[in-house]
């Protein structure tokens, strides 16, 4: 059997504000249906949604400082992530094509997760 690898999907650039209740519900149901589909096919590993508010910790001189932000532009906001298992990057990208994010004007960044065992 082909060994499966893990891939990270980052969901970018979706703005749900300004939608009507019916549209919000429809959008949600499409996302749920897509995740359930991935899960049924054995590809789903984990997923979380991310809050929009963020702080950044950085170093200035010797001190570590915490600043509000980054306040990314709408197109760069990461709304959440999902980890799938797939045989290669190509399959992971193919699976991502089914994501309803595209109907909402967003995009998915697909990254292979580095395998720690040899």
């Amino acid at each position: 059997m082909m060994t499966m690898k893990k891939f990270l999907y980052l969901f970018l650039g979706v703005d749900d504000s300004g939608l009507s209740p019916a549209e919000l519900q429809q959008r949600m149901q499409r996302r749920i249906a897509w995740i359930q589909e991935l899960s049924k096919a054995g590809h789903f590993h984990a997923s979380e949604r991310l809050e929009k508010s963020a702080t950044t910790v950085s170093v200035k001189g010797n001190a570590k400082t915490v600043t509000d932000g980054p306040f990314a532009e709408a197109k760069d906001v990461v709304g959440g992530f999902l980890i799938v298992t797939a045989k290669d990057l190509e399959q992971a990208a193919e699976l991502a094509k089914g994501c309803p994010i595209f109907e909402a004007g967003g995009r998915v960044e697909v990254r292979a997760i580095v395998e720690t065992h040899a």
Partner: protein
Amino acid sequence: MSEGGRETGVAEHLFRHEAGRITAALVRVLGLHNLDLAEEVTQDTLLRALEVWQLGVPDDPAGWLIRVARNRAIDVIRRERAFRRFAPDLTRLLESEWMLAPTVDDAFFAHEIRDAQLCVMFCCAHPSLPPPAQVAVMLKTLCGFSVGESAHAFLVPETTIEKRLSRAYAELRTHRNFLDAVTGPHVPERLASVHASLYLLFNEGYHGSHPEHAVREELCGEAMRLCALLAEHPAGDVPRTHALFALFCFHAVRLGTRTDASGALQLLAEQDRSRWDRALIARGEASLSRASTGNELSAYHVEAAIAACHATAASFADTDWRSIVNLYDVLLRIRPSAVVALNRAIAVGYADGPAFGLDAIDALARETSLAAYPFLDAARGDFLRALGRTAEAHASFERAIARARNDAERELLARKLRGG
């Protein structure tokens, strides 16, 4: 909401309907003058659900929404109470940290939400607002329709809906006595206005043809939902409300059979009556009997009785046309209109024979504003054909086709011309 509806365990229209309930409860606390703030809190709540539920829908979705809305409302009140006034009768309670949460909780009890929805409905139906504005604001606040969705359903530009809404919001901002909306001497007048709005809403959905029937049928569904809410509440529990609900039921019975699989309009005589919704007929009959408990006979009563004759007839031929003619006579006395007169003339033709129908229609064509209405010539054509006057029938159908207001009507009339 066909996609994933069943598997995800989220009821159809849940967001829209809960949005209406939550907004009403929030308006109770925040005050009608803060309607926009209430809608903002509702929107934030739904956005939160969108984020959270995609990874697992809660067991009690409606309860979850209410908890989140309640918490947001408390946050908003804490943040804004130095700058804003909320519901005048709750001001002191909301200022008290000790009473804030229980006061907000009160507004979210089921019966309080129902009361608040009724108050919103009565405020929206303020007689100073033109009926289309009343309907627009009801759809927005109580049914969760966006500007775009309303514009789509009413076949008007979004700017038209926006104008109606801004007019309505300006009016609602002046209301200080939210709770008084459903009590006091003005209730009968306001109730008549609520009925008229619901009737308009239903008719918008029922009449006219549009490629996207589903959107318009939703308007019928919303009119029925609000009317049922009204009928259950002491302020609305009067014979007229039940008559209106019965009328909606008897018409809605046919909603699924008005068009065939290709979307073409189906005449009453052609519709597959075995697909009519029996449960709705039973509901209509129950409401009509509740409507008959007083001495009142409103136009809604008569219209419901006419619709009941159609809904309960085993076939087009078995329809009790004699009763329908009599009911139209009553309706003409209570609420005369050219369309009612035409419907009566058509019923005469089926009750007494095509020659009588033709006479009645020709009499109408001379004296009313109906001459340009395509269905007058269509009915004339039907009766002429039944009398064997084929050439005149064709001429009549052709006049009707020339006056058709949209493609679906044109197609239906062309089918009549072909004799199909």
